[in-house]
């Protein structure tokens, strides 16, 4: 008879659910998730300090840091390394690459936060976190998650675009189509009733059909 390994299901955060609370040692001292209340937060993990893809990502995150802060978004990294390794690495990035890392980086040696957020992919690595991005809104709700494998560096324009799309959706109660960029037309949410569908067609939107309407902001 074939044997199966039974594993406890791992609970991971889900879009629309509260982000799990934590208190963690970081390169900027002990921080709690609650410290970011009122701001958006991008919490991202990287596999390891002093590795090439992660170094390019840290530089890229640092390059969009000011743009994120203009959007009321804070940034926080995480890996399963010590705070001393983090300090040495960010100092090395500044010295060798000329880029100052101003955002905090969690030293998650006991994997507590990584486990809480489902950042560990044992099939890929048992010792490193994958490249995860969690977008947490000012109320502490997880609004988006991105997972990349160890081999592939993340795309910063897409992260900025995601923030712009989420904030635009919140502000105007709209959705955004594929490949949307700020300034493009947005999607009017589909109607829920027959009457709404009829009214929709007379509302002056750019409609292909009753369920597919766009408008300018």
């Amino acid at each position, binding site marked *: 008879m074939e044997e199966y390994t039974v594993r406890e299901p791992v609970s991971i955060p889900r879009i629309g659910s509260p982000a799990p609370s934590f208190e963690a040692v970081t390169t*900027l001292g002990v921080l709690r998730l609650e410290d970011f209340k*009122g701001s958006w937060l991008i919490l991202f993990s990287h596999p390891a300090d002093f590795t090439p893809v992660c170094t390019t990502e840290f530089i890229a995150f640092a390059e969009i840091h000011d743009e994120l802060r203009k959007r009321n978004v*804070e940034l926080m990294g995480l890996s399963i390394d010590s705070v001393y390794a983090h300090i040495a690495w960010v100092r090395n990035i500044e010295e060798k690459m000329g880029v100052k890392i101003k955002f905090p980086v969690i030293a998650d040696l006991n994997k507590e936060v990584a486990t809480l957020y489902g950042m560990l992919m044992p099939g890929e690595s048992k010792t490193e976190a994958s490249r995860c991005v969690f977008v947490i809104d000012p109320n502490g709700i997880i609004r988006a998650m991105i997972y990349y494998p160890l081999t592939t560096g993340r795309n910063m324009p897409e992260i900025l675009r995601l923030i712009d799309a989420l904030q635009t959706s919140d502000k105007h109660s709209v959705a955004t189509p594929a490949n949307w960029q700020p300034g493009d037309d947005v999607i009017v949410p589909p109607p829920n009733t027959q009457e709404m569908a009829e009214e929709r067609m007379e509302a002056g939107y750019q409609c292909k059909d009753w369920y597919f309407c766009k408008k300018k902001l």
Partner: protein
Amino acid sequence: MACIAPDGSVTRPGRKMLEAMKAPRALEDVALVAEIPLYRVRSVIRELLDAGLAEEKDGLYSITGKGLAKLM
């Protein structure tokens, strides 16, 4: 600790916050005056309160005599 060094001295963000709290302020105002992100202010204030360098009354935070002595 982030704002108190192992030798007991107050580090740069802690000093900037203590300076800002010479007048009682809400944390949001401390962040503005000290030019430190609010999330960091919330973290550092815990240490300053624990060390007795700052105190809170009615939601306003101010420097204590012990905190003033640290700025000398």
